[in-house]
């Protein structure tokens, strides 16, 4: 196994590497209201931006595309459908099984033909009793009746409105393709990180501590964060996170602070290289994030440090 500072501290990559061991299925885009297009893996939504950045690193590659309908004017994917009367264009429609009386040519929802007195059908227009299907009356199938103008029809006008308020007809919609991804073999380079977290989990579990590895925790924003380890004891509930090397540590610590704010009540134990502890101490709120020096390459030593805080 690599030493911690040789690993890239991206728990999502460790999660993907762990997933790739179990499944070779392609990763499909899905549309979520409020979040846009995301990629769902084992119940975790990864943003298109994150997935795209992994594609740029050649850890994922496109293996096809899935198109989503989009507004032709602003490309919004957030669309709502309205069904309108083809005559008066209003929306007060009722969907029902349609019935037609051949003699007087009246058609309407089947409920209008049901007699109050007995089980027979009665035409609401000419009041004749209808007994023989196919001869006196027919049921052409499901249709719509406009409550405003009374028109009965099978196919309503379909209008689409996007989140920007633009209106389009169905055949005017654009199709916006999003890649379907497959995981490349290079992702296995990050299995080391998952193994490192697993080794720490085992060491903590041996001490009787309830711990989850690569845990999915939903923040106040609705984003599901993949956390290297979450620890629960009678004393506290904590997330254990890592900055494994000095590269880009300023930005990384800001990301950890933001994640910690999003996670609310959890205390974060953030393991960083010993050389960074004093530098980063000036940036974090110690009540929310406790900085700890990574104690060498030994996962058991990390577990001991965790136990000192939460045990």
């Amino acid at each position, binding site marked *: 196994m690599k030493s911690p500072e040789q690993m890239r501290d991206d728990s999502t990559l460790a999660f993907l590497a762990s997933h790739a061991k179990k499944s070779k299925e392609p990763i499909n885009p899905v549309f979520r209201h409020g979040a846009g297009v995301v990629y769902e893996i084992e119940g975790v939504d990864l943003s298109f931006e994150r997935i795209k950045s992994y594609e740029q690193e050649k850890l994922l590659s496109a293996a096809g595309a899935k198109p989503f309908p989009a507004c032709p004017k602003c490309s919004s994917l957030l669309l709502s459908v309205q069904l309108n009367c083809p005559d008066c264009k209003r929306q007060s429609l009722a969907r029902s099984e349609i019935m037609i009386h051949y003699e007087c040519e009246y058609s309407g929802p089947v409920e209008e033909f049901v007699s109050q007195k007995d089980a027979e059908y009665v035409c609401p227009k000419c009041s004749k009793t209808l007994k023989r299907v196919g001869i006196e009356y027919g049921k052409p199938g499901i249709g719509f009746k406009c409550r405003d103008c009374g028109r009965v029809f099978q196919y309503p006008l379909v209008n689409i409105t996007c989140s920007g308020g633009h209106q389009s007809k169905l055949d005017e919609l654009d199709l916006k393709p999003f890649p379907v991804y497959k995981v490349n073999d290079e992702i296995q380079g990050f299995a080391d990180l998952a193994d490192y977290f697993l080794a720490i989990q085992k060491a903590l579990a041996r001490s009787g501590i309830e711990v989850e590895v690569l845990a999915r925790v939903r923040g106040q924003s609705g*984003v599901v964060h993949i956390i290297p380890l979450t620890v629960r004891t009678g004393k506290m509930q904590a997330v254990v996170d890592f900055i494994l090397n000095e590269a880009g540590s*300023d*930005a990384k610590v*800001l*990301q950890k602070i*933001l994640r910690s704010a*999003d996670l609310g009540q959890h205390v974060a134990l953030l393991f960083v290289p010993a050389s960074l502890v004093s530098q980063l101490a000036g*940036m974090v*709120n110690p009540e929310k994030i406790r900085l700890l020096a990574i104690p060498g390459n030994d996962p058991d030593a990390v577990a001991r440090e965790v136990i000192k805080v939460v045990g």
Partner: protein
Amino acid sequence: MEPDRARALEGIQRTLKGLLFTETEVFYFHLQNLGVGRDEILDKPEQFVRTIHDIFGKGSPLVEKTIISEISKELSVDPKSDLVEMIKSLRKGET
């Protein structure tokens, strides 16, 4: 939106992305909770900076300094010491 405003907004959004990477959406969520959409940063600089302070606490000077530095480079303007003032000056076209 005028070209300079658009470039200033893009510069701020790009700087946030560079710092926060995929957590940027989380920041925008909390910003929206304070009533500031991601495209309203130039119009509500006080609330924008307050969100930075609320979330990043002692780490906020780093965020502010990075944004000031990046947008002054982006728009070839003199940096100001305060992010709110910097954004207000961009808004008024003082720079």
